């Protein structure tokens, strides 16, 4: 090892590049470390600003809602923010009379259905996508099937699944799986196809084995695309599960909303919708967090 590199104390042969200058094609560049740190600080500031502005928009919406409810003064047509909040907190841990279970339990039921279906769907979808990317024959075999299924709204399958699988948990989970698979297969194929061939060759010339390259370069490189696919299919999974719970379930957030509507408890309808919004945002935030971990260029 000794001698391969210049002796200790030797100065760098090449100075850092001079500034690219304003208007240079490569604007996202730095000529010294201070600039790099300043740039990172500026990106953090921009992110704080963006989050603050976004929060202000949500607060404005709530204020507008509250004002409209106070003017309208009809709790059935439009309950106020305060009434909705009270109803939400009240039923969060108390059973709803017509149903016998508290809100958190229905949230848990819906989440369990979504996550079960989502995890299975992602595993099958990513595996299918990887196989399609690896083999031309498999791609030509599976592609038309996905193209046929993809545009169909998963809800169209509900009656079929009820006939085949009954009204238990299984048809609901299968519905999620069916919705998630095509999205994940398509995004996985796209993400793997986008990995440059030379990136693979580069890893191989650095001494990586085929297996190491597959895992640490090809799949790793496709990870941001796969995570984006997961965000898309998670949103689809929420709309599927709520719809199926509205139609054919005796538990879950969709069922609560339906029940509350039947009893003209509009505040609880809103509370159910808000619960879905919060849970959906939380799951998406988790996936977004993973995406930022996987792709440093999106940070900031």
């Amino acid at each position, binding site marked *: 090892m000794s001698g391969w590199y210049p002796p200790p104390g030797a100065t760098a042969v090449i100075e850092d*590049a001079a500034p690219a200058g304003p208007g240079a*094609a490569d604007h996202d*560049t730095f000529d010294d470390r201070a600039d790099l740190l300043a740039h990172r600080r500026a990106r953090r500031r921009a992110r704080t600003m963006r989050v603050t502005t976004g929060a202000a928009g949500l607060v404005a919406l709530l204020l507008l809602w509250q004002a409209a409810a106070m003017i309208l003064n009809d709790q059935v047509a439009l309950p106020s923010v305060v009434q909705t909040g009270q109803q939400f907190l009240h039923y969060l841990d108390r059973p709803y009379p017509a149903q016998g279970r508290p809100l958190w339990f229905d949230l848990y039921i819906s989440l369990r259905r979504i996550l079960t279906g989502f995890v299975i769907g992602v595993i099958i979808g990513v595996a299918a996508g990887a196989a399609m990317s690896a083999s031309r024959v498999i791609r030509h075999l599976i592609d038309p099937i996905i193209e046929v299924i993809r545009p169909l709204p998963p809800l169209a399958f509900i009656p079929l699944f009820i006939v085949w699988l009954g009204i238990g948990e299984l048809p609901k989970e299968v519905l999620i799986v069916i919705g998630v698979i095509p999205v994940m297969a398509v995004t996985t194929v796209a993400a793997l196809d986008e990995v440059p061939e030379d990136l693979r060759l580069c890893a191989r*010339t*650095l001494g990586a084995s085929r297996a190491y390259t597959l895992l640490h370069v090809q799949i790793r490189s496709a990870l941001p695309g796969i995570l984006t696919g997961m965000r898309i299919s998670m949103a689809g999974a929420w709309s599927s599960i709520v719809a199926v719970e509205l139609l054919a379930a005796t538990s879950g957030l969709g069922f609560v909303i339906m029940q509350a509507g039947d009893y003209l408890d509009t505040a609880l309808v809103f509370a159910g919708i808000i619960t879905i919004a919060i849970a959906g945002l939380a799951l998406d935030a988790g996936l977004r967090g993973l995406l930022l971990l996987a792709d440093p260029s999106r940070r900031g």
Partner: protein
Amino acid sequence: MAARADAVPAAGAQLTEGGATAAHVVLDRVGKTFRRAGRRTVALAGVSLEVAPGELVCLLGPSGCGKSTLLRIVAGALECDEGSVTVGGRPVTGPAPDRGMLFQSPMLFPWLTTRKNILFGPRAQRAAGRDERDDPELDAEAGAILATVGLAQFSDAFPHELSGGMRHRAAFARAMVTRPSVLLMDEPFGALDAITRIRMHDFLLSMWERYLITIIFVTHDIEEAVLLGDRVAVMGGRPPGISEVIEVPLRRPRHAIDVDTEQFLAVKRRIRASLTG
């Protein structure tokens, strides 16, 4: 420089300053034909070239002359249908870390910091049991090469936070840290702006003099070929191959600023005549 001039091609490989070997590369009547949709395209035919240990040879020619194909055959990414390629006396059978490769795009891994990009090779080889150094040793090595290429302050920056020139220097460091005996460069500076290109030429010349490594450099830029190369292999013709190998009798060390001396221009004219003639 004397060492390089004295290099004996028949020696197979020559020891450089750091104990790594600069490989002797021999291409013997290499041919490559692509078959696609029933059509045969002869990409290369009868290409023979010897590159001495520590020599810098440029493959120069227009698009489609087969120069990149030839480089990829040496890299082991493509198999030749005719002839043979040996590097340091061993036949090429596939990509391996004794032949480092640099591309027009630096091909850094965007999810790794500069330091981790540089350590990709050693870590991949450690996973395969071919490198037994532990993390502190690897870190020290990465730190040393980061200082050599002038990126010591950017070890924790991600590729998207580096300038174009810095990315290429990082890619160079990543290729060199696995101690290749020959570096294969495929139009590495083709996408850089003119000023960054000049800096990268000086960078490459100084690094080559430091590591005394064999380099095969593919380019379509005559000036670049004359500035860098000991010899320039002019490619072209039907079927594509090496039409002429021209010595560049310019003194070393060379600098990117010396591209308009009378001597330089004379070589340039000679090569242009060979390309167009």
